[in-house]
């Protein structure tokens, strides 16, 4: 996702100044996605160029402009909400790749990699849960939904790590990594 849709969604509520957009964006995502004001104005000027937002003609005492959504901006936003996020939109899963490499790289204890990651992920889960206990069920609904999403994702990661651990434990002892490896290195692998 880009900042673009975040700003379009906020402008759907009401016309806003750039700094208002930034504040509202952070309020809705609980500061998990900090924006700087420069990013906001760069994005706004692009949206303006593409005809998705327009200036209302009002401005504050510092000459800051108020923006509102155009009809095509509204259509763009509606289309975005109606389109499910696909996994292609997400970055590659570094952890899965790391564990996969740990399994196939001589001298690496894949179970230790899994265990260390699980402890770290559970610790992260504790921190998220703590933030949740401080949130107000009514006032912070948007933030709570974002937190829950992070919590469920971390939980899924722990479950996958547990599953991987079991798979690794069941794996028969691995034959020598490559015939060319020195014998003392092979002992490290085992």
């Amino acid at each position: 996702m880009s900042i673009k849709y975040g700003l379009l969604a906020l402008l759907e509520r009401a016309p806003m100044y750039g700094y208002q957009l930034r504040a509202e964006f952070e309020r809705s995502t609980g500061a998990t996605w900090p924006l700087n004001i420069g990013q906001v104005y760069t994005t706004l000027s692009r949206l303006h160029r593409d005809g998705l937002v327009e200036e209302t003609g009002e401005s504050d005492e510092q000459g800051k402009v108020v923006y509102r959504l155009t009809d095509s901006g509204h259509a763009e936003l509606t289309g975005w909400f109606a389109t499910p996020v696909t996994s292609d939109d997400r970055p590659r899963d570094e952890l899965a790749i790391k564990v996969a490499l740990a399994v196939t790289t001589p001298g690496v204890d894949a179970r230790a990699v899994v265990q260390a990651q699980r402890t770290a992920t559970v610790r992260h889960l504790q921190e998220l849960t703590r933030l949740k206990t401080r949130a107000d069920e009514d006032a912070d609904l948007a933030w709570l939904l974002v937190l829950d999403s992070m919590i469920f994702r971390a939980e899924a990661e722990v479950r996958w790590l547990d599953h991987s651990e079991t798979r690794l434990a069941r794996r028969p002892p691995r034959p020598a990594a490559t015939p060319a490896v020195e014998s003392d290195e092979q002992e490290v692998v085992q």
Partner: protein
Amino acid sequence: MTEYALELRDVTRVHGSGETAVNALHGVSLRVRAGQLVAVMGPSGSGKSTLLHLAGGLDTPTEGVVEVEGNRLDEQNRAGLAALRRRGIGYVFQDLNLIPALTAVENVALPRELDGVRVRVARAEAMTALEDVGVANLAERFPDEMSGGQQQRVAIARALVGPRRLLLADEPTGALDSHTGEAVLRTIRARCDAGAAGLLVTHEARHAAWADEIVFLRDGRIVDETGAMPAADSLLGAQ
């Protein structure tokens, strides 16, 4: 003198003997302070239920020591152990926690009446315990007139009624949906924040995450632990 509500020192539990001996727990050490919630995470067969039974004096270790509020369980006679178990320790299981023929307040008052406390006093304590978990309005309901989540909160009230300060919980969110399960964990967390000591065993990371400290149990051994959480303020400072 001790600062721990519960302490396990190098506890081993072997089921059976000789060739067929099974090591359910192996050299496990664990401490829970008042005001602290500790979670034990592990898959089925990892020994987490054995650990909870040993902590509650429902089972005896083959080796090692279990202390509840500074009292070694192995040094108690039968009556002493029964009294410790009844007065010091509260249990919450996955389900079947409440007696169906008794109302919520009667269920919570029951352990106090068994302690020999007068009925009126026991009832007053039960009402306080129900208030503490936010379900005082359900006092006159029977278990089958309450939702699963409400029943679990009543069970938590019963576990901590009167002077009881140690809560042992075995998968207390059982078959509850995720929102209700969270409410149960929130209640346990709140009771620990109010001074109780809690030991929670679960296979779910999302539930374990409510604890101050999490230990990972695999094949009867602690393989890793998160250590104590940083103080809440330092966490916010990092935000």
